[in-house]
């Protein structure tokens, strides 16, 4: 047979409060509570506390957690510094590279010659002084040089034209880049959801404002009541002082009216 419930047995009391006791223990505790006022009061008090706990509510937030497989994820956007040349087609970039090389070769006066000794490459504008006697081969080379000059002129014209074409294409690419994002298709559901969230937020703010205003009014009223009470108390003190002064005056009059012996 188990020992009867005593006032100090708080563990059984807690089990009883939460209904996790068997029928025999319940009956035992019930019997004790019917005769022990402090224990009965404690059970009521703790029950009230439990009731008050229900007032504490977590905020009503939107959670919407979802596990998403990696394969379902869209590629993560990678932020890079703006690189305008990425908008230019590859062939145009290659052509630009050729243009730059050609311009560099022109500036450096690159000369490639083939002769009986094989190929020779030379750069620079200073032509070496001909110490050798004038011969047919040299004349032939000069003629070739003139012909090459004419060819170079045509190449230069072509390169200039190419450069202009490149510039115009780059401008077009930049203009395309500058087109606002509105041109991209936007998910209407997302817009609707954002609008709903905005509307809900506005409503919440309005309610919050109403709540704050009421709190403010209530605080003001409380303050006013407290001030009135203080003023009333001050008047009471004045009355008391006046009463005391009157009593004093009466005493003075009474004393002054008594003939001295």
């Amino acid at each position, binding site marked *: 047979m188990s020992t009867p419930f005593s006032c100090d047995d708080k563990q059984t009391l807690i089990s009883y409060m939460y209904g996790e006791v068997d029928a025999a223990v319940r009956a035992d505790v019930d019997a004790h509570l019917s005769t022990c006022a402090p224990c009965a009061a404690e059970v009521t008090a703790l029950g009230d506390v439990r009731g008050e706990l229900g*007032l504490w509510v*977590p905020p009503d937030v939107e*959670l919407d957690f979802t596990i998403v497989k990696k394969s379902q994820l869209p590629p993560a956007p990678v932020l890079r510094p703006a690189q305008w040349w990425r908008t230019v087609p590859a062939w145009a970039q290659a052509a630009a590279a050729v243009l730059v090389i050609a311009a560099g070769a022109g500036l450096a006066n690159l000369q490639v010659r083939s002769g009986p000794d094989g190929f020779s490459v030379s750069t620079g504008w200073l032509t070496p002084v001909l110490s050798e006697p004038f011969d047919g081969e040299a004349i032939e080379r000069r003629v070739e040089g003139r012909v090459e000059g004419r060819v170079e002129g045509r190449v230069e014209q072509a390169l200039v034209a190419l450069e202009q074409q490149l510039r115009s294409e780059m401008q077009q690419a930049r203009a395309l880049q500058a087109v606002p994002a509105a041109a991209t298709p936007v998910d209407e559901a997302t817009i609707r959801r954002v609008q709903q969230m905005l509307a809900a937020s506005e409503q919440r703010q309005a309610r919050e404002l109403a*709540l704050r205003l009421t709190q403010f009014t209530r605080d003001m009223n409380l303050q006013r009541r407290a001030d009135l009470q203080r003023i009333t108390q001050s008047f009471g003190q004045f009355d008391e002082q006046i009463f005391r002064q009157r009593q004093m005056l009466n005493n003075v009059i009474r004393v002054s009216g008594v003939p001295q012996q």
Partner: protein
Amino acid sequence: MVATDEELVARSMDGDVDSFNQLVLRWERPIYALAYRVIGRDEDARDVAQETFLRAFRALPGFKGQAKFSSWLYRIALNLCRDWIRRKKRTPVVDMPEGVDVIELAAEQGPVESIEDLVARQEMSRIVAEGMKLLPDEQRTAIVLKEYHGLTFQEIADLQGCPLSTVKTRLYQGLTVLRRHLESQGMTTYESGKS
């Protein structure tokens, strides 16, 4: 017919992510509420809840089903809360959240409640939250698990890793501290315990 937790867990273990997401949908709010009441900060509670489901998803192959899925989730969430409290090295802040909409709460209960009553209720909620802040972590957690999640003493003992008697003592002491706090704030009308 609604699938049970066990069925959804079994499907999730077979690689069905949608089934796991059903479990998330079912348990996200209780887990968030648990985290919120233990650590007291909305943003952090949200992070803890999210991390709880991520960890559960990753650890799912190791879930053998000895405990209920919900108990397993609670355990993960409580461990994360404990880490959070330890990391921050401070007592949980249990402020009245800005987002608590007492008006909506009242609307669910009936349209007769005046704005004055609502303000009073919000005030009482704040006092309760303050009282919970006074409690040691173990007592607060025990009360949260018992009062708001309806766990049995044994389940709480398993989660907190302590004997059954300790859970009961924590509950009794916690409720007693709360009672004194509420009385000091003039929230209770009874005369109990004063005789």
